[in-house]
């Protein structure tokens, strides 16, 4: 073989012909210019709703804003919203922790089945489960009804992470506490419970944000909150000013929640000190308490799954006896899947540069861009919907009531899901492999596409899947932004359910639940595998 020194140098005579342009070399972050530009674009998109919300509010005079804000109605909305957020979140935490402890730490018979049954309510959109309740008990109204429906719909957000932590913590911690003379109950209180702080806070935050944003369920339960009021005021009189002012209050509430959660989280990290494989925990014998535990869990599953599902089955059967336009179910399903696929694709593409910047280049720019894309977490669907309407009316006429605008709104709404799903797998891929690919003669883009990209498949799949399913069950934004004549499963369902045509509404809900069951199943499997 000829020595490599004999091969002619393939670099052109002008030595710096294809050189990097120094100006584009972000010196602090080291991020390539193109990536930074893409990230900035995505961040700007994420800020779009806030910007147009502020523009709408600026159009309202101070005295007008004062009149809109300080009326008795607002006081009642505020008590309703905050009261429900507080009560429902706390109850969800109690129910979620108790159920997780029973499943993970006791000799409960059939615990894998319980695990599945207790997580499955996640597959039922809130407006479908409230539909189930209201269709059976038309008298279920107001605070009590809202509390019942939201607790049984949302407790899995606490149950899932708590179950994972209960399974993953080192049993030696509790054993040491018992060895120091603490009773089982006190050991739980002083050792186990503090370790559950982070999963409970995390789950609680998700629940509280959902409660602030929820429109469909509360509209059916006739329980006015900020979100329902904004929608109604917008729909009734196209009262942009009032809706905008109320939206701003709602956004501030969400931001306050996010801030409070960060503060409560603190710097706490529960590191596992010392290595060794995790031993399974010794399970508590239930003995005579078994009946009570089984009864409690059964009641929970009946309330969370049994009622909504049996309502769906009942009304589907009722409906099919009348004339059921099955072709429109099919049409709405296809439309929904198309929108969901488009939203998943667009959102994933937008998430990629942000995830790359935030994981690979921890500079100020990367961090700022990532945080900006999380801002929409504080924006309920109804607010994003209204802001996008305002955006299309003020600045982008061509987009008003187009599918493009709707997909953009989905992307803004669900971008954090896709970014979070990408971050984990991306952090596990060493950037060195791209360096190696560069030194083997590949340009930056091809180096990425041939090394890192193939390794991100799981993250891309997970993120796209989450966005897809969130889009399928999205109601409020879709109602506000869909092109005239476009009907998705959610909007069809909503139209029929609102006009009390339960039989006609149920098939649409059944299809939505069927589609959402898949991610719930995958979630359960992941938690199950994490410990088993």
């Amino acid at each position, binding site marked *: *073989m000829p*020595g*490599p*020194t004999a*091969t002619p*140098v*393939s*670099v052109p005579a002008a*030595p*710096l012909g*294809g*050189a*990097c*342009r*120094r100006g584009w*070399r972000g010196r*602090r972050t*080291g991020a390539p210019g193109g990536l930074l530009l893409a990230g900035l674009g995505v961040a700007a998109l994420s800020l779009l709703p806030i910007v147009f919300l502020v523009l709408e509010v600026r159009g309202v005079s101070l005295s007008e804003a004062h009149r809109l804000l300080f009326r008795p109605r607002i006081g009642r909305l505020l008590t309703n919203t905050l009261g429900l957020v507080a009560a429902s979140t706390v109850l969800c935490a109690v129910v979620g922790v108790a159920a997780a402890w029973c499943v993970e730490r006791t000799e409960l018979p059939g615990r894998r089945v319980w695990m599945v049954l207790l997580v499955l309510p996640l597959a039922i959109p809130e407006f479908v489960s409230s539909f189930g309740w209201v269709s059976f008990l038309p008298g279920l109204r107001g605070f009590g009804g809202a509390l019942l429906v939201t607790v049984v719909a949302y407790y899995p957000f606490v149950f899932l992470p708590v179950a994972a932590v209960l399974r993953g913590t080192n049993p030696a911690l509790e054993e040491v506490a018992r060895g120091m003379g603490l009773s089982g109950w006190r050991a739980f209180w002083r050792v186990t419970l503090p370790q559950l702080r982070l999963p409970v806070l995390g789950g609680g935050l998700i629940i509280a944000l959902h409660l602030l944003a929820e429109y469909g369920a509360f509209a059916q339960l006739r329980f006015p909150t900020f979100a329902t009021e904004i929608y109604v005021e917008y729909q009734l009189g196209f009262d942009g000013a009032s809706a905008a002012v109320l939206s701003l209050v709602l956004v501030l509430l969400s931001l306050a929640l996010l801030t409070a959660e960060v503060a409560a989280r603190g710097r706490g990290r529960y590191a596992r000190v010392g290595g060794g494989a995790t031993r399974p925990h010794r399970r508590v014998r239930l003995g005579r308490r078994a009946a009570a535990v089984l009864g409690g869990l059964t009641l929970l599953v009946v309330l969370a799954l049994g009622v909504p599902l049996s309502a769906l089955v009942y009304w589907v059967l009722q409906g099919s006896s009348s004339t059921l336009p099955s072709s429109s179910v099919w049409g709405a399903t296809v439309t929904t899947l198309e929108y969901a696929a488009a939203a998943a694709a667009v959102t994933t593409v937008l998430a990629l540069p942000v995830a790359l910047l935030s994981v690979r280049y921890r500079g100020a720019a990367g961090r700022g861009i990532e945080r900006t894309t999380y801002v929409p977490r504080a924006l309920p669907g109804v607010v994003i919907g209204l802001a996008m309407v305002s955006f299309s009316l003020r600045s982008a006429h061509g987009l008003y009531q187009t599918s493009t605008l709707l997909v953009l709104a989905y992307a803004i709404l669900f971008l954090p899901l896709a970014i979070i799903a990408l971050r984990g797998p991306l952090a596990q891929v*060493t950037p*060195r*492999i791209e*360096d*190696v*690919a*560069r*030194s*083997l*003669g*590949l*340009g*930056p883009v091809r*180096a990425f596409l*041939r*090394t890192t990209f*193939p*390794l991100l498949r799981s993250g891309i799949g997970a993120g796209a899947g989450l966005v897809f399913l969130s889009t399928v069950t999205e109601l409020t934004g879709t109602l506000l932004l869909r092109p005239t004549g476009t009907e998705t499963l959610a909007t069809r369902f909503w139209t029929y359910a609102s006009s009390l045509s339960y039989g006609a509404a149920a098939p649409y809900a059944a299809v939505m639940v069927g589609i959402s069951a898949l991610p719930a199943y995958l979630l359960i499997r992941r938690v199950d595998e994490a410990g088993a």
Partner: protein
Amino acid sequence: MNAISLRGVTRAYGTTPVLRGVDLDVESGAFAAILGVSGCGKSTLMRLIAGFDHVDGGTIDLGSVRVDDGHRALAPERRRVGYVPQEGALFPHLDVRANVAFGLPRRRRGQARVDELLDLVGIGGLQRHRPHELSGGQQQRVALARALATEPEVILLDEPFSALDPGLRAETRAEVRRAVKALGTTALLVTHDQDEALSCADLVAVLRDGVIVQAAPPRELYRAPSDVPLACFLGEANVVPATIEDGVAQTPLGPVRLRDAAGEGARGVVVLRPEELTLTAAGRDAGGANAEVGAVEFYGHDARVELRLDDPAGALPLIVRTGGHDAPEVGQRVVCAVGADGHFVGDGHAPDDLGRGTGTVAAA
């Protein structure tokens, strides 16, 4: 001709300077090593040469091509520099064959070429294995084959052996050196391991605080380090105060002949390696200084002996390596003599820990 040539290379991260004017020349076909403690900037230097990072000032030439002048830099894919990072960084989604063929143009990705390269690094027959199925040493060899596949002018080895266990390390090191030499490729190895640098490189450049303090062939570097801390970094050393009289160094151990001439009357230290000192039992008049054995670490094939000289200027501790067969006992009286020419470092070069007697190895 030089394959790599650095002039005044500087690089800072924020306000922290990492490289503060590095000059280095590596001849074409040489196997060079950059030796330094962790955090001294050696990985940064490697990334600058590969083109993953760019210099703040100074120039980098590869062959006759100026690849970085502080204003414009040639993209890494156009530099013809192979790169073997720590841990190998094999592409986890590709098998061995596809890893090695990765940089080859499509028409040259034939079986024969890959076989040839894998045989060269001594692991033929692993084509279909996935990276996670290979041992650490095998991964490193695949990484080397992958880097050599595109016939680079220069190959950069970034601590490629540090993750391997000691036995495997020596074997892999020898194999890598043989493969690189067989192709005549210029190699630059970065390491924090003195033994590794001294045993496999033709040229060792020591990087300290962002500058190259000395670049020389291994023997010369070990025998004639430019200052005392460097001497101690490269291996255990006895640092003995000395004055030059009549062309020899006058020391508490008696007169010591020098390898290189030193100015008459100069004061400084003589660096003597433990294996350059000899011991004889007291009483037999062999010439040298009287001493008492303070401690003995017996290793079988040899022994490390700590001595305390009966020096009027203060008991000077010394370390001597002797063959295991004639290791003295603790407390024994011995005569210590110098069995080789010494290396003199004048006061001008010697930093503050001059009079400490024994230098200890900084990172053994």
